[in-house]
């Protein structure tokens, strides 16, 4: 049976984006008052795993790193159909950049032991670096295919997937175990069901901290993060209305010119 690990991240609800502020001292996102949800693209990763489970049979382990409230999103994944949920939770993991996050998740996957596939969302809605997936694969010394938009062949050791490019796609043949980061186009994530929630009610969420992972504190969290955020600003957006006059043709021409001047086209 396939063993799949799905990495999920708790992010501030993108629908409440206007409430997210930047903490001027820590230069990180001030997440309080904004509910945490599963990173939207991680839902596609979860859906891909669930579809493979239905198609081929698989055991799905959900892995997340975050503070205790992130346990809710792990439970949500159990409600969606994951078999096991693990939260990597420790003060020492706080303030991690993409590199330290990937390192911690890789250590978690190592501890899980056997795995054929690791799924990650292509990017997170709150930082959007697209680095974590490839970095996990690097730490685990396994092949990675980024931006997977279709799984073409999924039998045997060698799988074939389509990976999005800006103006097309790559057809990639890859040997398992492998890591895929997935795009929104891969599938339509299913919604939570009431019976799924009931079934996940008493399921244990395994918590692993620094001791369980057996790692040095210096390589985790803020201490293990090579990234230094020197500045973060809120982007102000203002509406500007301009009425373009003239005949239909003139208006179109002037509009095109204005868009070109603004660098939009």
């Amino acid at each position, binding site marked *: 049976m396939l063993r799949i690990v799905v990495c999920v991240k708790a992010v501030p609800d993108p629908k409440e984006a206007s409430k997210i502020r930047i903490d001027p001292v820590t230069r990180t996102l001030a997440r309080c008052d904004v509910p945490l949800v599963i990173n939207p693209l991680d839902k596609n990763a979860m859906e891909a795993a669930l579809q493979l489970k239905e198609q081929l049979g698989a055991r799905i382990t959900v892995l997340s790193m975050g503070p205790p409230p992130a346990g809710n999103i792990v439970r949500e994944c159990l409600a969606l159909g994951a078999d096991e949920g693990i939260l990597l939770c420790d003060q020492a993991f706080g303030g991690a950049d993409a590199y330290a996050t990937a390192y911690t998740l890789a250590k978690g996957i190592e501890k899980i032991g056997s795995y054929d596939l690791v799924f990650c969302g292509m990017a997170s809605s709150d930082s959007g670096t697209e680095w974590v997936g490839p970095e996990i694969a690097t730490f685990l010394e396994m092949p990675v295919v980024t931006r997977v938009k279709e799984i073409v062949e999924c039998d045997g050791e060698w799988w074939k997937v389509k990976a999005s490019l800006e103006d097309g796609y790559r057809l990639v043949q890859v040997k398992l175990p492998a890591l895929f980061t997935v795009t929104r186009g891969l599938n339509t994530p299913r919604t939570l069901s009431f*019976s*799924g929630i009931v079934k996940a009610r008493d399921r244990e969420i395994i918590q692993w901290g620094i001791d369980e992972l057996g790692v040095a504190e210096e390589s985790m969290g803020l201490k293990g993060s090579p990234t230094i955020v020197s500045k973060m600003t809120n982007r102000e957006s203002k509406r500007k209305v301009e009425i373009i006059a003239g005949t239909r043709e003139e208006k179109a021409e002037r509009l095109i010119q204005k868009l070109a001047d603004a660098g939009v086209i």
Partner: protein
Amino acid sequence: MIDFTFTEEQEMFRKAAREFAETQVAPKVPEMEEAGKVNDEVVKALGEAEMMALTIPEEYGGLGLGYVARLIALEEISRVSVATAMMLQIFGLGIEPIIRFGNEEQKRRYLPGLAKGERLATVAVTEATGGSDPKSGRTSYKRDGDDYIINGRKCFITNSHIADTVTVLAKDEEDPEVFTAFIVEKGMEGFRPSHEEHKVGMRGCNTGELVFEHCRVPRENLLGEEGKGMRVAMAAIGEVGRGGMVGCALGLQAACLEASLKFANERILYGKPISNLQTIQNKLAEMRIDLEAGRLLGYRAAAMQDRGMRSSNEFAVAKYFTTEAAQKGAKTAVDIHGGYGCLEEYPVSRYYRDSIVLGPSAGTSDIMKVIIARWVLKPFRK
């Protein structure tokens, strides 16, 4: 200290219901409004999302989650489509008499199919001669060997044309004081839906008439004891019927507030959003106050119901308050939108139409006051 917070699981139910409503119901709303008909795909989706199974005990294929969970689901669905929530609330109302008064055989026969949405339910009490005064109904039954023969007409029946299983209240032909409840099934000889109403609001749910012409009902379809039908009908309507309307009203209140907040922050007048104007702020504040108060009333009554306490009076208070507040909120939302509130492109015009239908459903506000007055005066009556 009373805990007024939802559990983590209840919050997850809300999330699930909201996701369902926004992805499965919302895209169908324009079609429902245009056609003025029930959307089959929405009904199917409700079944697949286990929305009909919420209150049905697990041993009969349901989820056994109770009435707070039901209220959460109805509120979230109504926030997107009051018509769909109304349809679902009446499925629940049709299921309730079988849960409460059905014998083991009836529960095994009907509930699993109803839980899956393979069968749809409703209740038929109201007649042209009376809804809130069910004793004035004229639909009658008489014994005929092992069967019963029902004759009469029921009106204002939600789900009339889509229901497969109908709990019908009828009076004894020989004794007008004696009422009995029956389970009538689609396809039974002499039973048919007739006229379909065209309502001002909630266009996506079906309301109409049911006709019984020498409708033969076998003895095993008698629901509860013969002669105790009024209890069957009232127990279901008093708690599940009123509770369901609270869910529909709360969802509409929330939708009105959301739409108003969005518009008030986008609409520029005197060089700034109208949400900066105190007169608009007052309206928004009132809508929020009504929503907070309505939720407290409604969820408290539902929590009582989950504990097995009698809650029909508390639901009467909540039904009165929330449906009145929804009607007021819908009018306020239209007012905030000004001329745009009169256009069908803006959802508030639909909210306004839908709010009208909330009032009389499961008893008008005036009838709720009659019930509440009876409740408060009870200690003084001998």
